[in-house]
């Protein structure tokens, strides 16, 4: 019987809710494991889950510096989409989308995946042509995409300014109906419970302080809770990639850490039932089930490990919101926060064996990590288990930068702050 069901809810209600098991244990780390996953965020937890579920590798520890889900998995704006231009990205993110569509059932945990669509707006005919090209590229690979006219957009989002006198008049948009949002904490908790029930040890408050080595080979880690040995050590530490790789003696990476801010407004009645992205700047917005508008914009634009942002970006994001929704001018912002993004040199992720023997690396998620959570863990688990990439992540190996095989969806070149 599923652990969470209408039946178990009723049974536990009748017995005073005394018999619920914690969603994951709090084990002390063992002396050794088959696989150590560093990083108890979405990607680390999903990696452990798929290692156990798909590959039968259950002697696994997930080491988390703080508490589970305290990093980017709880700091993003929860958008899930697969509307990319380049085939490597489209295939990978579409695989993720398919995992999302069945995730609540697979985990027996309601991640509240809501396929409310994602609409990219165009403000010039040239931009509209560009969206049409991207839509065609998506449909060519079997992903849903449809162009929308200004009148259709006005019907879908009545609050938006579609008039010709808008600051940046809207000429159309590209909609992916299967895109949507999910509850990000539930994703972390659901994967954690799924991994835990299959025997994975999730060790919180356990910071990695160094690597154990035998020559070049990584044979384990030193942590604030002692030495732990492992045949394979996998990193899924997102914004902290630079710091952890430095512990392994690797200073230079095709990664820069930048801070990205996100914002939530006070609760409003339903006003936006899709995800919208602005085309004349960097701005995206959706509305949470509680009613708060969840939105964000550009990176602060310089290397940062501080999980907080600066005011010029707050100003810019708000002005972009008002360019789209003049009617929101008097809505108050409730909270803002920052997360550290591992920006790669081509804007695409890295899921790779190496770079040292015994090590596996998952990073470079830029600001797109949340939607990738299922496929990232799925592909990383495959790579760890088989010592080679799956065809979905074969294009995302670390050596692509040195082989001239970059995957630059936005065409920005090696300038991480612009991806």
């Amino acid at each position, binding site marked *: 019987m599923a652990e969470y069901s209408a039946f178990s809810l009723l049974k536990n209600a009748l017995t005073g809710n005394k018999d619920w098991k914690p969603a994951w244990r709090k084990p002390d780390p063992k002396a050794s494991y088959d696989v150590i996953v560093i990083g108890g965020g979405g990607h680390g937890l999903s990696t452990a889950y798929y290692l156990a579920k798909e590959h039968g590798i259950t002697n696994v520890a997930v080491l988390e510096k703080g508490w589970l889900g305290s990093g980017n998995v709880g700091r993003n704006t929860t958008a899930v989409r697969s509307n990319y231009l380049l085939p490597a990205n489209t295939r990978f993110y579409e695989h993720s989308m398919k995992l999302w569509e069945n995730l609540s059932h697979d985990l027996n945990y309601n991640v509240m995946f809501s396929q409310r669509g994602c609409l990219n707006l165009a403000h010039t005919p040239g931009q509209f042509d560009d969206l049409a090209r991207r839509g065609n590229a998506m449909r060519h690979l079997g992903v849903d995409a449809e162009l929308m006219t200004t009148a259709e957009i006005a019907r879908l989002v009545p609050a938006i300014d579609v008039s010709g006198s808008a600051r940046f008049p809207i000429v159309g948009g590209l909609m992916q109906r299967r895109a949507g949002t999910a509850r990000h904490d539930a994703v972390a908790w659901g994967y954690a419970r799924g991994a835990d029930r299959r025997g994975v040890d999730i060790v919180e408050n356990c910071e990695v302080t160094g690597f154990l080595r035998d020559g070049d080979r990584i044979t384990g880690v030193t942590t604030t809770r002692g030495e732990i040995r492992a045949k394979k050590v996998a990193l899924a530490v997102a914004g902290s990639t630079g710091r952890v790789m430095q512990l392994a003696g690797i*200073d230079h990476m*095709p990664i*820069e850490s930048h801070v990205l801010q996100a914002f939530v407004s006070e609760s409003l009645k339903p006003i936006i039932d899709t995800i919208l992205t602005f085309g004349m700047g960097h701005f995206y917005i959706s509305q949470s089930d509680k009613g708060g508008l969840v939105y964000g914009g550009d990176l602060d634009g*310089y290397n*940062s490990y*501080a999980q907080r942002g600066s005011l010029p970006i707050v100003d810019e994001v708000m002005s972009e919101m008002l360019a789209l929704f003049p009617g929101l001018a008097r809505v108050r912002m409730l909270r803002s926060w920052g997360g550290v993004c591992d920006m790669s040199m081509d804007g695409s992720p890295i899921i790779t064996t190496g770079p040292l023997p015994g090590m596996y690396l998952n990073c470079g998620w830029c600001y797109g990590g949340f939607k990738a959570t299922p496929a990232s863990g799925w592909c990383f688990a495959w790579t760890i288990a088989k010592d080679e990439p799956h065809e979905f992540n074969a294009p995302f190996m670390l050596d692509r930068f*040195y082989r001239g095989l970059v995957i630059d969806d936005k065409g920005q070149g*090696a300038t*991480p*702050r612009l991806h």
Partner: protein
Amino acid sequence: MLINCPYCGPRDVIEFTYQGDGNRERPQAASQNLDAWNAYVYDRLNPAGDHNEIWQHSGGCRAHLRVVRNTLTHEISSTAFAHGGHKSAARHKAEGKS
């Protein structure tokens, strides 16, 4: 965040454009050393702490600056011209003109 431009004095960060890691060395134009080019184009130091980086005062005097900034606190410990400053501007300054 304020950056103390050697020409213009302390100015708001929005006047500046970030150009990233200042430790990279561009190979000679005719160099065929692929490893050196790869390292120059793709590899970055990404420290948590003091970072030696290049900024341009693009909304001001347009000088390129070498800034040492802490990536955890955003505290700036030094600001200087990236290449010793522009010659005419340096002369301008030496002659005491404002």
